[in-house]
């Protein structure tokens, strides 16, 4: 599965990641090489093998549905780039 510059540009949009024009050739070439490396997997017969998501196949633990965390909004917002009246500020979304 060969990958080209415009594929990388599309993936970068999906990842919300700006890639500069100077980075693009190197990134395209190295990702093409990585995909060649991982394409080795395609040759292996994995019929009937369950995908493994977790090393010990553990199940998700459950806990009672009660509030355990304190409200630390003020603490957390001290390190935010921009806030106002307890809200995080971003550029206007709706005109």
């Amino acid at each position: 599965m060969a990958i080209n510059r415009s594929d990388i540009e599309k993936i970068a949009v999906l990842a919300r990641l700006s890639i500069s024009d100077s980075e693009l050739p190197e990134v395209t070439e190295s990702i093409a090489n990585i995909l060649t490396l991982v394409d080795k997997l395609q040759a292996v017969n994995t019929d009937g093998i369950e995908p493994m998501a977790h090393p010990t196949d553990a199940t998700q633990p459950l806990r009672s549905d009660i509030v355990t965390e304190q409200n630390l909004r003020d603490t957390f917002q001290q390190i935010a780039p921009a806030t106002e009246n307890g809200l995080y500020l971003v550029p206007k979304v709706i005109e």
Partner: protein
Amino acid sequence: MHHNSIADIIRGLNAKDFSSKELTIHLLNRIEQYDSQYNSFITVTREQALAAAEAADKLRMQGNDNHLFCGVPIAHKDIFCTEGIRTSCGSKMLDNFISPYDASVVTRFKQAGAVLLGKTNMDEFAMGSSNENSYYGPVKNPWDTTRVPGGSSGGSAAAVAALLTPGATATDTGGSIRQPAALCGVTGLKPTYGRVSRFGMIAFASSLDQGGPITRSAEDAAIMLGVMAGYDPKDSTSINEPVPDYTATLTDSLQGLKIGLPNEYFSKALNPEIESALQLAIKEFETMGAKVQPIGLPHTDLAVPAYYVIAPAECSANLSRYDGVRYGYRCSEPKNLEDLYTRSRGEAFGIEVKRRILVGTYALSAGYYDAYYSKAQKIRRLIKQDFVEAFKSVDIILGPTAPSPAFSINAKNKDPIEMYLEDIYTISANLAGLPGMSIPVGIVNNMPIGMQLIGNYFQESQLLNAAHQFQLATDWHLKTTQIAA
């Protein structure tokens, strides 16, 4: 005083040979004097360290020191969140991030009375095997400052090797504890997945990441792991298994211990000088009563390809949280929300992090998920089954940690694939979730090399026992104390 191991320090503090404050000042002065050569620390926490050392000395004076670790200085990899202290993860993205909370590992060391000297340098978001990917500049190997220390926990390994701290925390997703430990001539342990809490340990690939210690001996690793390990309800993947006293079994006999040598690791591709060193180590284990036998791990050559689907996929999901909105870097004058996300991430992530986010996004995108991600997860199970089979006939698996001694700075950072192959022997243990250890086993061209021991699930005690017995019979682990200033 800086030659002291953690075990020595505990004895010295107990005997009142020196105070925690004296030792802490000594180590802080060494960091100030020598770390400009190594760049192993991103942040030195002098004031907090002095306050913690004074508090520890007071507790000891009053007889209220309820943990043997009280007053012992350590460093944390800058991936562990530390309340009120910058936690950068080696990235421009978090250069301004003062963590509002402590990682559970950090809390455990605080409760034990440990003294934090500072935060160690690392590859950005733990992605790298040479420490050249740090926003704060590369770490230099204390054995030869023209060479890399390995990565991603290169700062922790270099600081321990240079006798700037007796021990440091680290993390290992594909070899990031074991490979730098090997390249710097120190001891590193990656525990079983779920043994050490990941709460507050900045996530790279959540099903692979595991924290552990880097020290100068197996005995010290046993002491540090005792502080770090244990169930944490704040980490849903933490496993509720009792934590044994890892120091209690260090002196057990190795009589009858069954050691497996994977045919796939001892192949023609293995560096002959590393193989010779390993053969001497194997003889040493046999002298101690261990039985050695060949084993097969037939899916070994698929570990790197499977890892470079799974790790980037999980990375792309985990790193989506860095959006320039709630914390971390924000680009200046964003035109709109899309521009805010895209440019904040584009300007603050380094090239390797970007590459992995893109590979992961691609592998998870519609139409490719089954061919890449699902396929890699199936291969992952085959790799795990290899180990399950092998551990039916052996107790411990022995092999190399890294393919070669430390390489020169800039030697491999132009070709990502060449860098990825640094972890060819270490990645499988992460995919399977098994504990793995690296200990010094020889010197090749004046640089240290490492031996890897892989154990069965939750058998850290057995690894530490074997490593300690080897270190009682040999002195490779003491060589770094002879090269440091």
